[in-house]
């Protein structure tokens, strides 16, 4: 703080300090505290608020775990998000390696632009494109049936549709961190490993992936959190059987009119994401500062 004042003077320094403090306290901390407050109170009629029934309780949290449907959707959201994360990584890694180490400069520029341009369009619209592609009478079914791959059209709006939509939506969040970390690898190390007799698989397992660890952790954290907090893809590309936890939260707030229950569910999702980040950092043995870079 002393160096802040020294650098910008007391006037400007104070302004910066106040702005940052306002942001952190007003925009980050306060809403979360309000959520916490909501989540710990029962859902009451307006007349009862402030009355004898309005006292702190854990009923909203216990409700989530005692309701088998909600509990099931919550658990499914966790593993499905992990599946999205893993699939995105599997799809992205070869491309990231190719871009970082194999492709010529021109090809890198072309592919990067080709990947980024779709992201200029809003996520809802991009998901809508998948909605059209995967429709029962949509192009994918037409092509696959005419090629003879499938006999009858498939109902893609399900877990598969959600997975496809999410992998597509979050691919860049995985690609760029992984690409960045692979491109800092000295190509001579890959050659040295090859020269010592390592197969392609061994080179990636022992040299490239350990080197790209921080980037992979970053990409995984991004995609997991985005997937867990996703609303559009499951809403558009899912079926009743593939409901996402965010949809339940949405329903409590906007349809069920039970903000307290919704706040509790949202906090549980937040806690889950934080736990996941911490676990990922522990597993990959990287610290938060590396990920933020």
């Amino acid at each position, binding site marked *: 703080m002393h160096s802040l004042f020294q650098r910008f003077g007391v006037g400007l320094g104070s302004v910066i300090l106040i702005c940052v403090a306002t942001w952190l306290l007003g925009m980050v901390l306060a809403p979360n505290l309000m959520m916490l407050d909501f989540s710990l109170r029962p859902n009451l009629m307006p007349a009862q608020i402030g009355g004898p029934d309005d006292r702190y309780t854990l009923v909203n949290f216990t409700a989530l775990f005692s309701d088998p449907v909600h509990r099931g959707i919550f658990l499914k959201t966790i593993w499905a998000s992990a599946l999205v994360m893993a699939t995105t990584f599997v799809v992205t890694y070869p491309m990231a390696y190719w871009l970082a180490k194999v492709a010529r400069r021109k090809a890198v520029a072309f592919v990067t632009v080709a990947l980024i341009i779709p992201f200029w369009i809003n996520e809802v619209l991009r998901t809508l494109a998948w909605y059209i592609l995967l429709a029962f009478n949509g192009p994918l079914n037409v092509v696959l049936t005419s090629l003879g791959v499938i006999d009858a059209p498939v109902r893609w709006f399900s877990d598969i549709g959600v997975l496809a939509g999410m992998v597509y939506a979050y691919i860049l969040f995985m690609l760029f961190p992984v690409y960045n970390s692979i491109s800092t690898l*000295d190509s*001579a*190390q890959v*050659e*040295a*490993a*090859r*020269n*010592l*007799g*390592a*197969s392609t698989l*061994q080179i990636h397992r*022992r*040299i490239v992936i*350990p*080197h790209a660890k921080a980037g992979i952790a970053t990409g995984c954290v991004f995609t997991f959190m985005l997937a867990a907090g996703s609303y559009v893809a499951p809403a558009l590309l899912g079926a009743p059987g593939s409901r996402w936890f965010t949809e339940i939260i949405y329903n409590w707030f906007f349809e069920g009119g039970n903000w307290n229950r919704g706040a509790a569910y949202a906090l549980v999702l937040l806690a889950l994401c934080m736990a996941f980040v911490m676990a990922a950092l522990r597993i990959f043995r990287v610290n938060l500062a590396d990920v933020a870079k």
Partner: protein
Amino acid sequence: MSRSVELIDVEMTFGKARAVEKLSVAIEGGEFFSILGPSGCGKTTILRLIAGFMQPTGGRILIGGRDMVGIGADQRPTSMIFQSLALFPLMPVWENIAFGLEVRGVRKADRRKRAEELLELIALPGYGDRMVHELSGGQKQRVAIARALAVEPQVLLLDEPLSALDLKLRQHMRAELRSLQKRTGVTFIYITHDQSEALAMSDRVAVMSAGVLQQVAPPLELYSNPATPFVARFVGETNEFPGRVERVADGMAAIETAHGLFTGRSGANLKVGDQAIVYVRPEAISLAAGADANGLHAVAEQLEFEGATAMLHAKTDGGYRLSAALPHHRLAEAPTAGTNVRLSFAASQALVLAHA
């Protein structure tokens, strides 16, 4: 001795650029063979061709008598030491050394044992559990060598591995590399642009320029009998006196130059009337005026003290700037700047080569 590596009419082009022109050379088993040339002369390309990182666009490469066409870098009996060393920073020293064994499926206990043996060989016992970044430059160098030797290659390929070290360490590592090569009996192919390195360590040196092999010879031969003007200029310092061939007889040639008639040993294919250059090493030029020697007049310009010798720079009547290395014990008679000096060199110390 058996032929270890044989290159037969090897060519390499990148698009339109020719990196290596029809090159043939046979390297003996257990030889310390250097390839010397300025950067961009194609020497690293040759090393990468032998290692199998690239396939030649023409010709054949034989290692241990076996044609290497279609055999990848991971299948060849060669091991490379990279300019950047390319040690694996996330593995401890012993895993670095044993990496080649690990990928061959050798059991962990055996790998560890072999790594310890190699650490003994490179005089770093007990360093197995250190990380690479904890080592000094010279230690990293030795670990890289141990890692390359662990896979028991027939040929070790070294791509200017000493260039990142400071002078003292470089000289020390030269001796160490040389003795390691003698002890292991592995064929070393050493790439360098540093001629003193090549001369100090090698059994034979190949000099390359612009993708063309200029000469392959033992160091002494290379220094005293350069085959081409490029070699004469590139290996060691030299003075050049261009002129016209007047006489050729008994292996000696007389050249009329701007500084007078000089006699020197004749290179190949010299004919009377040819344009030629007389090459004289600085240490062959002395201040004394020998009776049967070639003599010339010059004005002393500058004296650079270099330790064992001092380099006298002088300007001849014809305007050519020559250098003469004066031995330490003759420094007392060294001329001061601006004085006239009479210099001479023996005919046996001069070499005449046709103008390239």
